[in-house]
């Protein structure tokens, strides 16, 4: 079947759009499930990625589900969107033929109580009741009690085999999640990660918005990615309203996004050093991370960037005197980061714990649909700032940093490369801040439209998709945090490795629990 949207006589299978664009819902093709899955398979086989696959209530058929897929053709900078109708009887799972969709199909099953038949790993994702009263993919009764983490874990039996259960509460100051290891002695045969403890019902609460809480949901979807998620949300609202944002506001948002990347990358390199007991870099980076957070606070008063990004622009301006102050402090933070982080690469006891441990090969990373520094460390050359740019990234480019090892060293080193590029980018932007206003009023949202927004946040690509109803409210709001793509990568990285390396492997991915659990 031809899936290209080219010839005039070929039936339209997808609607093409760019990042930050809204189209009327009527333009989204409605395929049958076979056609729909063929589009996904053919696209993925030709190098596209599944950015989001999700369900939404079907307006025509109350009992049915409308399933949407957003595919990214990174080489051509295009996004493709299409949909299918799925009845309450379920649909054939695509996961056996396309592993990228495994968690998306589980999510659809849990949210709407519709079964993907033949899914090889159909387990709850977040342990909540389905959105459709009475419908449950596991045939649980409405009054049946269930708890997060209580399910059938994959088990291996044998004389040497033992099971290790960790969490939900972990040893450090960290979000909750459950990890179940099947070990042969010290070697991990299999790790199953069961999350959902952080589920706060964000997607459901976004429906009916935007209202006065919506922005604050975006700010706290993953609190360490406030700028990333609020930027994605702002572009959604701006796309639906058809309002332009000034270049100045776009530049300020991008500066904030890169500051967020810097704080987290520097913090993660410090935390990796701490996990292997190399305290100099751990101590220095722990402090320097705060210096980057304080640069964000200088702009907006809050270390995590709360209040900085607003639909229609930026909540705060950067005035001339602040530019000088920020540049000066950035120089100091750069110098101190450089000396602290370069200690790592010259130290053989550090490198012995970084190199060759926690490896994910390129093929696995692609098959799982991994994103962000974790994917780039496997040699996967993707970065939404270059491939699907929005805002100021359409004009100011950040070099993409990749490495080839797929191990802990590669994930650390890609972060260090990104730190350097982000500092250069912020410096350039601060020195040439466009003039004009920082915030404008937006027109009303379009009714009956669908909008998409992708951001390359510090953990990787995050995606928001919104559908509006006839009253201009969100009918469905889908959030895909980069962690949703990458948690399985973390599980694969430890397979066949020593269990004592798990904390270090986990830290090298540094994934979000609440971003996954929503």
């Amino acid at each position, binding site marked *: 079947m031809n899936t290209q949207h080219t010839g005039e006589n070929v039936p339209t299978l997808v609607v093409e759009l760019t990042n930050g664009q809204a189209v009327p819902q009527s333009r989204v093709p409605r395929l049958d499930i076979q056609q729909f899955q063929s589009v996904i398979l053919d696209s993925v086989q030709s190098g596209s990625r599944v950015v989001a696959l999700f369900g939404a209530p079907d307006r025509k058929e109350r009992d049915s589900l409308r399933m949407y897929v957003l595919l990214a053709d990174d080489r051509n900078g295009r996004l493709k969107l299409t949909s299918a109708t799925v009845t309450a009887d379920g649909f054939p799972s695509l996961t056996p033929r396309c592993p990228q969709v495994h968690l998306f199909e589980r999510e659809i099953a849990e949210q709407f109580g519709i079964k993907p038949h033949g899914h090889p790993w159909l387990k709850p994702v977040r342990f909540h009741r389905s959105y459709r009263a009475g419908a449950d993919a596991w045939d649980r009764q409405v009054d049946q009690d269930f708890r997060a983490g209580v399910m059938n874990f994959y088990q291996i039996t044998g004389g040497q085999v033992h099971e290790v259960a960790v969490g939900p509460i972990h040893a450090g100051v960290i979000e909750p999640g459950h990890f179940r290891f099947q070990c042969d002695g010290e070697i991990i045969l299999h790790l199953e990660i069961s999350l959902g*403890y952080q589920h706060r019902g964000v997607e459901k609460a976004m429906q009916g918005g935007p209202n006065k809480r919506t922005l604050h949901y975006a700010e706290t979807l993953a609190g360490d990615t406030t700028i990333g998620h609020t930027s994605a949300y702002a572009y959604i609202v701006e796309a639906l309203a058809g309002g332009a944002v000034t270049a100045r506001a776009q530049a300020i948002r991008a500066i904030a996004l890169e500051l967020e990347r810097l704080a987290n990358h520097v913090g993660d390199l410090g935390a990796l050093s701490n996990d292997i007991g190399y305290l100099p870099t751990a101590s220095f980076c722990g402090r320097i991370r705060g210096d980057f957070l304080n640069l964000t606070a200088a702009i907006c008063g809050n270390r995590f960037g709360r*209040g900085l990004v607003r639909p229609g622009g930026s909540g705060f301006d950067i005035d001339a005197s602040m530019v000088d102050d920020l540049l000066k402090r950035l120089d100091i933070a750069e110098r101190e980061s450089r000396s602290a982080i370069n200690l790592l690469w010259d130290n053989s006891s550090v490198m012995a714990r970084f190199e060759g441990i926690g490896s994910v090969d390129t093929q696995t990373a692609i098959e799982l649909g991994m994103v962000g520094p974790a994917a780039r460390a496997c040699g996967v050359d993707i970065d939404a700032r270059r491939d699907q740019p929005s805002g100021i990234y359409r004009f100011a480019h950040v070099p993409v940093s990749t490495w080839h090892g797929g191990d802990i060293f590669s994930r650390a080193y890609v972060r260090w490369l990104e730190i350097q590029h982000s500092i250069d980018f912020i410096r350039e932007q601060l020195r040439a801040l466009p003039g004009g206003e920082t915030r404008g009023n937006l027109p009303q949202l379009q009714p009956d439209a669908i909008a998409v927004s992708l951001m390359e946040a510090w953990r990787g690509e995050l995606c928001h998709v919104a559908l509006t109803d006839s009253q201009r409210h969100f009918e469905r709001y889908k959030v895909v945090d980069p962690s949703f793509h990458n948690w399985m990568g973390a599980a694969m990285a430890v397979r066949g490795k020593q269990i004592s390396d798990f904390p270090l492997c986990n830290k090298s991915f540094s994934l979000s629990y609440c971003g996954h659990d929503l």
Partner: protein
Amino acid sequence: MIKSILTRIQQGHRTIAYPAGPAPALPGRFRGRPLFDTAKCPDGCQKCADACPTQAITIASGKIKLDLGRCLFCTDCADACPNGAVTYSRDYPLAVRQASDLIVDSDQELKLAAALDGKLRKLYGRSLQLRQVCAGGCNGCESDVNVLGTIGWDLSRFGISLVASPRHADGLLITGPVTQNMRQALRIAYDAVPDPKIVIAVGACALSGGPYINHAEVNNGAASVVPIDLFIPGCPPHPLTILDGLLRLLGNKNLISRKSLPPAR
């Protein structure tokens, strides 16, 4: 090795002098407690209360009441006010001992946290081991609790440390609105802490549910599961606010002379 030593010398000694010395400088745009100049409020105006995402503001007979437990310290009320009546205090101390002390009139001083008394002060005044439990927190509060352990803040110089097991702990430090899926784990952790124990709730979510107030998926904060001894407002609270709260609870002599703060502008 030489390079490590040289780097150590370059990086220098960076632990803050506070509380014996001055507190680190807060950002110029820091938002502490929202202050309302009611002299500027026209009769019947409700705009700040209407704009608040968490219903933290109530207006009755010309007085504005603010629930600091619900407050996200965002700019929505200030942005909505046509008369510039909303400003933000630059004072970082915000921690209180009673839930009722979180609700303050616009002209009322904040009743800052008193020290533990008697036996608890004797037990924990110079050594407090806390188990942190994140129960739906967004990693904002968690990050700025974590930062207290870095060399800049060096929490352990006050005898306070964050430990791996509730059985090694004197109390819990809770963040997040307490999701339904974490309710049981939080309760188990609390029960595992030996008596006498103390509980510290950090951030708007743990105090009230924060942006998630009244979601079916959450329990509107830690007080729904366990009794709370110290409430630290913020979204997230600045590390200085958290440290100030902890030191007040332990009766740090550099802080106890300042029992309350006037709503200064």
